[in-house]
């Protein structure tokens, strides 16, 4: 009897951290929806040359403004219709995903490097360094992003690289703010003291003790900043001072379709809805990651 009872106790297994994480991930609806949509859009961007039915730059003036398939006169040859220059709308939409994702990720990397550096040194060293960094953040926050980005892009000319750099140099504020407060919380925790006591260099403490522990927050901010950069690029392109024609940026497609939106609303709603879906999926994933990685009992 006794032996049997012990045997039963042995069979109770506690879930490993990995299993808990997996279980939380799968049961988080927002994260799963966001992840699926994002993966779809990402695959679409990756396979653009394979899956797009036409060349996104090929103009055919004899086939201008064909309606999408849900209209009575739509054809399967152009499922989403054609624009005012007779370019296949679906192909432009697919290639547009490449531009949005590329700009979003690149601008996030640049702003991340700046923001993480400023935030971590401000949070870790405190005192004067913190005061200086806080001052820089305040200064940056008081400059209107859209206005400054527009002015700079207009002055030095819009190209993919210029936009990535301008956005990257402008939107590091959230990285800096979040990294600063996360690092501040870690500064006086025992394992950082322990690392100091055994004589680790500051660089080593920052890289091997601080960084891994602020990684969760970092990933959340990074996803939100990708969304932010994509939205700003779309706004700049919409205003004619971002990605230049004939590149198929979604913001630019909305801008080019504006003239025709009264008679063919689909010409702006298609890129607009896809753009909103992309931002939505990234935001859902960001929020999901925050919930999933949050300590037990907090969400």
């Amino acid at each position, binding site marked *: 009897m006794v032996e049997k009872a012990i045997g039963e106790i042995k069979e109770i297994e506690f879930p490993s951290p990995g299993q808990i994480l997996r279980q939380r991930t799968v049961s988080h609806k927002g994260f799963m929806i966001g992840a699926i949509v994002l993966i779809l859009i990402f695959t679409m961007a990756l396979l653009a040359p394979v899956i797009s039915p036409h060349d996104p730059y090929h103009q055919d003036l004899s086939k201008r403004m064909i309606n999408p398939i849900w209209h009575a006169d739509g054809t399967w040859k152009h499922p989403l219709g054609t624009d005012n220059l007779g370019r296949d709308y679906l192909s432009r939409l697919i290639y547009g995903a490449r531009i949005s994702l590329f700009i979003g990720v690149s601008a996030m990397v640049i702003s991340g490097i700046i923001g993480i550096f400023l935030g971590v040194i401000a949070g870790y060293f405190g005192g004067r360094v913190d005061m200086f960094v806080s001052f820089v953040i305040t200064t940056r926050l008081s400059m209107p992003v859209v*206005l400054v980005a*527009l002015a700079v892009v207009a002055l030095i000319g819009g190209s993919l690289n210029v936009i990535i750099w301008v956005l990257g140099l402008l939107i590091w504020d959230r990285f800096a703010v979040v990294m600063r407060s996360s690092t501040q919380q870690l500064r006086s925790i025992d394992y950082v003291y322990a690392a100091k006591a055994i004589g680790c260099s500051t660089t080593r403490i920052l890289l091997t003790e601080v960084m891994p522990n602020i990684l969760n927050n970092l990933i959340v901010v990074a996803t939100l900043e990708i969304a932010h950069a994509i939205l700003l690029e779309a706004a700049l392109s919409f*205003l004619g001072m971002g990605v230049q024609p004939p590149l198929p940026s979604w913001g630019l497609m909305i801008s080019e379709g504006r003239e025709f939106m009264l008679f063919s*609303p689909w010409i702006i709603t298609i890129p*607009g809805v896809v753009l*909103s879906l992309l*931002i939505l999926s990234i935001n859902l994933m960001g929020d999901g990651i925050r919930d999933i990685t949050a300590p037990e009992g907090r969400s």
Partner: protein
Amino acid sequence: MFYYTLKRLSLAILVAITVSLLTFMLLRLSGDPAIALAGENATPEEIEVVRHQYGLDRHIIIQYANWARKALRGDFGVSPYFNQPVENIIGGRLGITMTLGGCALVFAICLAVPMGVLAAIRPNTWIDRVALTISVIGQAMPSFFFGLILIIVFGVILRWLPISGSSTWRHFILPAIALGYYATPAIMRLTRSGMLEVLASDYIRTARAKGLKHGVVLFKHALRNAIIPVVSLLAVQFGFMLGGSLVIETIFAINGVGFLGYESISRTDLPMVQAIVLLVSMFYVVLTFFSDLLNAFLDPRIRVA
């Protein structure tokens, strides 16, 4: 409180000086502003005349000092496009942008605060879910796309409201919604989390135990405390709105500062762009300064930190 005010004020002034310097430098990125001012077909002699006229032949620091000294007195130079003082043109348009920003803020508050409160009273019910959906969509939809959708639905299909210009109050409805909706997610989330936190606190339980009415507890005790951080967020959001109104004003052809900024950027009207960027930044600096003070006034704990 006095020491805190002094500290905040000196920070605000330092930020203002830095921003003005940055703005000034930024617009010289284009290379030679004299060429831009003189126009495309100008001869080298004409460019020289322009260069001297605008003082562009002097050292950049002296140029900045001169510009800043005049700007402090409200003199931002002459716009080459309008051939009039910059401050006169901006002055005439500022009222429109302020009206738009004010309407947008009112719309955002009227939508976000009740939704946030309702969501907090009944967490995890359908009300909470509707509020969450509104805020998630608000964050995902670009403001220019939302503006265009409003134009198509209410201006073209239903023909309820005018879609372009700023002559009557009805012209401000759609742009105010488009601009204000963008600010709702942040306000709603903060109201909701603030209310949730306050409703779980001891003094609310005490108030309920005393037998106070539900409404009194909710509005007099809970909301008043939960709303403090929201007030300072509103100041910040208003600052953002003035910057973001550029897109909305452009879509609805509203003759405000934002539209003026967009047009001035398109025609490289440098003195105008400089003045507008500085104006919007200064507005933000002043707003955050006052919201910091307000916060410290309402919550004594902040003053000490």
